[in-house]
């Protein structure tokens, strides 16, 4: 059975596991995401031990191609965020999936 985890689920576990009142649990999760976003916007990555790192990369301008039409187009310089999972997270995901498969 597959089900997507959302904000509401995380808020529920903050309530159940550490007894936060609902409104505070919601605010804490929002504040956490806001801090991650703010750091990224300032160009700073965030390293969360035993989870992974969010890394901000500057991409320079390049000529790309529309894969459907074959037309060339200039891709302007931009910033992208990537996530590098920690060894811990990789193992948690790989081993439990392998068992399930």
């Amino acid at each position, binding site marked *: 059975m*597959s*089900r*997507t*985890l*959302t*904000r509401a*689920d*995380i808020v529920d*576990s*903050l309530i159940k*596991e*550490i007894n*936060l009142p609902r409104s*505070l*649990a919601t*605010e*804490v*999760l929002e*504040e*956490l*995401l806001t*801090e*991650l*976003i703010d*750091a*990224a*916007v300032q160009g*700073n*990555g*965030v*390293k*969360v*031990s*035993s*989870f*992974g790192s*969010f890394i*901000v990369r500057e991409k320079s301008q390049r000529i790309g191609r529309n894969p459907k039409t074959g037309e060339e187009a200039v891709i*302007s*310089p*931009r*910033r*992208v*965020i*990537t*996530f590098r*999972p920690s060894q811990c*997270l*990789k193992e*948690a*995901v*790989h081993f*439990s*999936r*392998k068992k*399930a498969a």
Partner: protein
Amino acid sequence: MTKSELVQKMARQFPQMTLKEVENAVDLVFDEITTSLATGNRVELRGFGAFSVRYRDQRVGRNPRTGESVQVEGKYVPFFKAGKGLRERLNKDVA
């Protein structure tokens, strides 16, 4: 920024919570994401991004030191895709 710096920043916004309580909450959020991915489920946080599990097929790799060919088994890896909101905010000042 490290997790402890993140916890300290957040703690300033929540004077009603101790540093330890904020830390426990932050740990729980990342634990929930980990658990969900480990059970094969996606995590979707609108405006931020989505975590999912992707399968990397087996391939023939090479030992970079010896140049020897080795069979690399297929594996499941965590994957993060930034949400539209985050992508746009990252490039607001550049665009």
